[in-house]
C-alpha cells in the first residue's frame, strides 16, 4: 500500500508541474506581445488553436497528450513528438557516456582512496574545486579545450557523485564487519569487495539514481555551450522562443525522468529521504 502511494507521487508531480508551468507561461509579462510577433512571422501560430486562457491551453494540451501527441511546435512548425524523437538519441548518446565516465571515475577514486588515503583526499579536493565553479564555466573550459559534450557532463557530474560515494565509503570503512575482516587477515581487495562493495551495492544503486536529476540539470548548459542538437538545447530554444507546446512537453519529460529517478533512489536508498 505504502509503495502504491509512493508511486502515485509520479502523476501528482506531473500534474502539479503542468499546472505551475501553465500558470507561469500564461501569466508571463510580455506574453501577448510575443503572440502578436508569432502571428506575423510564424505560420504554425495560425495553425494552432487560439487559447483564450491558461485553463483553455491546459485542456487543449491534456487532450493532445491523451492522443499521444504534444501539439505542434510554434518555432519549428513540426509536431513536438517528432522533434523529441529526433533529438532524444543525441542526448542519450552523450548522457550515458557522461554518466558512465563520471561513475567509473568515482568508483576508481573510491578504490584508490582505500589503498592511498591521499588519493581520496586529492579526489575530494579536486571535486570541491570543480563544485565551486559555475557548471557553465567548467563546460566552457572543456569546450575550448576541444572536449566532446559527454566529457563536459562527466566533469560536471563527477564531483557530486564522488562526494556521495567517498562519504559512504568512509562511513563503511570503520564498521565492525570490515574491522573483523581485516583482523582475520583478509587482503585489501577482499576486504573492499566483501566488506564494502557488496554490503553497499544497494546504496550504490540508490546513489546512481540520485545523480540522474543532476545529469538532467547539467544537460542545458552542456548542450548549449557545446552546440549539441539534443533535448537540452531544444529546451533552451523553446524557452528563448516561448514555444508553449514544446516547452510543456520537454518540462513534463524532464519531470517524469527526475521523479522516476527520485522514486528509485528512495526505494533503494532510504537515507535519500
Amino acid at each position: 500500500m505504502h509503495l502504491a502511494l509512493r508511486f502515485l507521487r509520479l502523476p501528482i508531480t506531473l500534474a502539479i508541474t503542468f499546472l505551475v508551468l501553465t500558470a507561469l507561461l500564461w501569466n508571463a509579462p510580455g506574453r501577448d506581445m510575443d503572440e502578436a510577433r508569432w502571428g506575423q512571422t510564424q505560420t504554425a501560430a495560425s495553425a494552432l488553436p487560439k487559447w483564450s486562457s491558461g485553463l483553455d491551453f491546459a485542456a487543449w494540451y491534456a487532450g493532445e497528450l491523451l492522443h499521444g501527441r504534444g501539439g505542434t511546435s510554434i518555432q519549428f512548425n513540426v509536431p513536438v513528438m517528432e522533434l523529441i524523437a529526433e533529438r532524444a538519441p543525441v542526448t542519450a548518446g552523450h548522457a550515458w557516456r557522461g554518466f558512465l565516465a563520471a561513475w567509473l571515475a568515482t568508483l576508481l577514486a573510491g578504490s584508490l582512496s582505500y589503498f592511498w588515503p591521499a588519493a581520496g583526499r586529492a579526489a575530494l579536493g579536486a571535486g570541491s574545486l570543480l563544485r565551486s565553479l559555475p557548471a557553465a564555466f567548467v563546460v566552457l573550459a572543456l569546450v575550448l579545450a576541444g572536449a566532446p559534450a559527454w566529457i563536459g557532463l562527466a566533469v560536471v557530474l563527477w564531483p557530486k557523485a564522488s562526494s556521495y560515494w567517498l562519504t559512504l565509503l568512509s562511513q563503511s570503512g570503520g564498521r565492525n564487519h570490515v574491522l573483523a575482516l581485516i583482523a582475520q587477515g583478509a587482503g585489501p581487495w577482499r576486504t573492499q569487495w566483501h566488506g564494502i562493495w557488496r554490503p553497499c551495492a544497494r546504496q550504490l544503486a540508490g546513489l546512481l539514481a540520485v545523480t540522474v536529476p543532476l545529469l538532467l540539470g547539467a544537460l542545458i548548459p552542456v548542450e548549449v555551450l557545446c552546440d549539441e542538437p539534443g533535448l537540452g538545447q531544444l529546451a533552451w530554444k523553446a524557452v528563448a522562443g516561448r514555444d508553449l507546446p514544446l516547452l510543456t512537453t520537454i518540462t513534463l519529460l524532464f519531470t517524469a525522468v527526475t521523479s522516476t529517478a527520485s522514486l528509485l533512489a528512495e526505494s533503494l536508498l532510504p537515507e535519500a529521504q
Partner: protein
Amino acid sequence: MNRAAAGLLIALGLLLILGPLVTPYTYAAQDRDHILASPDADHWLGTDALGRDNFARFLYGGRLSLTMAAAASLAACAVAAAVGTAGALPGASHAATAVLFDVMLSMPWFLLVFIVRALLPLDAPPLTTAAITFAVLGFTGWAHGGRVLRDAAAGMAGSPWVRQARATGSGGAALWRRHIIPNLLPLLLTQFLLLLPMLMLTEATLGMLGLGIPEPLPSWGGSLAELVRPDTATQRPWTLIPALLLALTSISLRQLAGGTDKREAVFG
C-alpha cells in the same frame, strides 16, 4: 582552515564595501578611448567591449551577487525552517509536508528557473529582473534544507533530553522555543552557508548563458559571460579573475559550513 576561510571572506567583504573608495569608476562609466584595454595603472583589470572598467564592475557586481544571494538564501532558510519544523510535528502536518517535499524535490527546477527568467520582459528594470531571478532561485532552493531540518527536529523531539524537559513540565510551544529551535540554529546556519554559494554559482551559470542579471547591472556571472567569446580566455586571461574569486568565495563558505556542521554534531 576555518580561520583562513573567514579571513578571506572578511577581506573580500571589506573590498566590496569600500569599492567606491578603491576605484574612481562606476560600473556603467564608459571610457571610449580604452575599449577592451589590457590592465594598466588606470584600469587594474582592463576594460570590457564598451570601455567599462572591469575592476569597478567586479566590485559592484560582487556586491550585487553576494547581497542578493544572501537575501535569497535567508528567505529560503526561513521557508525551510517553517516547513521543516511543521513537518516534524506528528499528524496531518507531517503527511502534508512530506508530499510537499517530495513534489518540490522531483521538479526539474533548473529548467523552471530558466523558463521564469526567460519569460521576464526585456524592458523590465534590471534591478527588478535581478531580484526576481534570485527570488526564484531562493524559492527553488529551500526544499533540501527543509527536509534536513525536519529530520533533525523530529530526531530532537524524540531525544532523551527533550523527554527529560517534558518530564520536568515543559511542553507545547515552550518546549520548541526553549529546547528544539535553539538547537536547530547551527543546522540552519549550515544550510544558509551551503545555499549561498549554490545560488551564486547558479546565477553565474545563468549569466554565462545570457539569462543572469541584465545589463547594465554588473554581476560575477555577467563578467564570466565575456569568456563565451572565442579566444577571450587565452588573449585576455585577467577575465578569469572573477571565476577564481567566485571559486574562492564558494570554497570558503563551504569550509565555514563544514565548521558549523561539526559544532552541530557536538550539540547533537
